[in-house]
């Protein structure tokens, strides 16, 4: 429990929102805010303005070749990630076969928060809602890593993500929140999602809100 009162935290709210409070003060203030909805709201209001300040900086063209250098760095970082995963799996598998299932789970869990190595995504799907309107996109990498994003025409709510490989039955692989028409989800699909597979968002009533059919990248 925080030693700070609501009055103390609200006094510090602008500095907390700006991220300029020192360690001890910051820790106490955050501890209080985590358990106090009203102070959370106060800090949130200041944070909205604080987060907008960097938008005011002047745009500047970066030096020539900047984009290529960034992409090369991302590719290199991706390769390092793959090597780390392979090494982790190899060491663990050598230690004991019995833990191999766990290792696979660890690697799969890692895929949910760590991007894949930079490589061409083999397939994608345009998510289409009622009336054929575009609702967003889905990308499939390595057959099972899936990213879904919707940005238009999907009502706020929580949706199940159902995937259905061609010739198989549909499987729910996760849930995605949509707020003010926008939402995104990344994770792993059990079934492999090749061309012809479908990805759909299913609302709480079981209705299909939008659907995409996986196809090879053009």
């Amino acid at each position, binding site marked *: 429990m925080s030693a700070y009162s609501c009055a103390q935290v609200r006094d510090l709210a602008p500095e907390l929102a700006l991220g300029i409070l020192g360690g001890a003060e910051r820790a106490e203030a955050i501890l209080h805010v985590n358990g106090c909805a009203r102070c959370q709201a106060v800090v949130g209001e200041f944070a909205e303005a604080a987060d907008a300040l960097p938008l005011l*900086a*002047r745009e500047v063209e970066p030096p020539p070749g900047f984009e290529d250098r960034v992409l090369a760095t991302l590719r290199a970082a991706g390769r390092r990630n793959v090597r780390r995963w392979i090494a982790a799996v190899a060491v663990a598998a050598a230690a004991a076969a019995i833990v191999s299932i766990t290792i696979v789970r660890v690697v799969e869990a890692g895929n949910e928060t760590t991007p894949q190595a930079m490589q061409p*995504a083999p397939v994608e799907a345009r998510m289409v809602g009622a009336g054929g309107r575009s609702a967003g996109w889905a990308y499939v990498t390595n057959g099972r890593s899936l990213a879904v994003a919707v940005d238009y025409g999907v009502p706020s709510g929580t949706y199940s993500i159902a995937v259905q490989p061609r010739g198989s039955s549909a499987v729910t692989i996760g849930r995605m929140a949509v707020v003010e028409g926008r939402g995104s989800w990344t994770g792993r699909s059990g079934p492999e999602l090749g061309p012809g597979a479908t990805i759909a968002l299913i609302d709480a009533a079981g209705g299909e809100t939008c659907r995409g059919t996986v196809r090879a990248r053009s």
Partner: protein
Amino acid sequence: MWSVSDDALVAGLAAGDTDAASAFVRRFQRRVFGLARTIVTDDRAAEDVAQEAFVRAWRHAAAYDPRRGSVVGWLLTITRNLAIDAVRVRRPTSLDPSVLVGLDRAGTDRSPEDLAQLGDDTAQLRAALGRLPPEQHRAIVLAGLFGYTAREIEGIPLGTAKTRIRTALGRLRAALVDQEEAE
């Protein structure tokens, strides 16, 4: 296909899609580099910061939550934090006032499309910043953009610095609320 939304680009980035990564960098590089350049005031250091910002964004793309703010806000917050860390050890004792003043004016090299977009995103905030008394303007820019603590804002008592930061941020918040209501 890269007329897709910012959110969709982040999803593609999280999936390791090279096209999405390229489009993401192309879309935001001027803003990221501009913010880094504003804070670190050196092209070479700004490029290092901007590059690292994109790497961080790529690493954490899967954790991006659109409910907590826009993609550009998220990316610029990453950039700001990296830039502040980069200059913390060699922070100047005072900043050129022209740098601060320049923040309330649009750059001269923007296209009409950029200016229109700028009008949608930041016009009210920019105007509100320009209307602040100079001492509040300085305090909020030093704290909000350059990461100065209230104690580090030189030449004024701590309480005065805190009051200026609070008042300025409150006014900027009010401008954002006005903008939301107008929309």
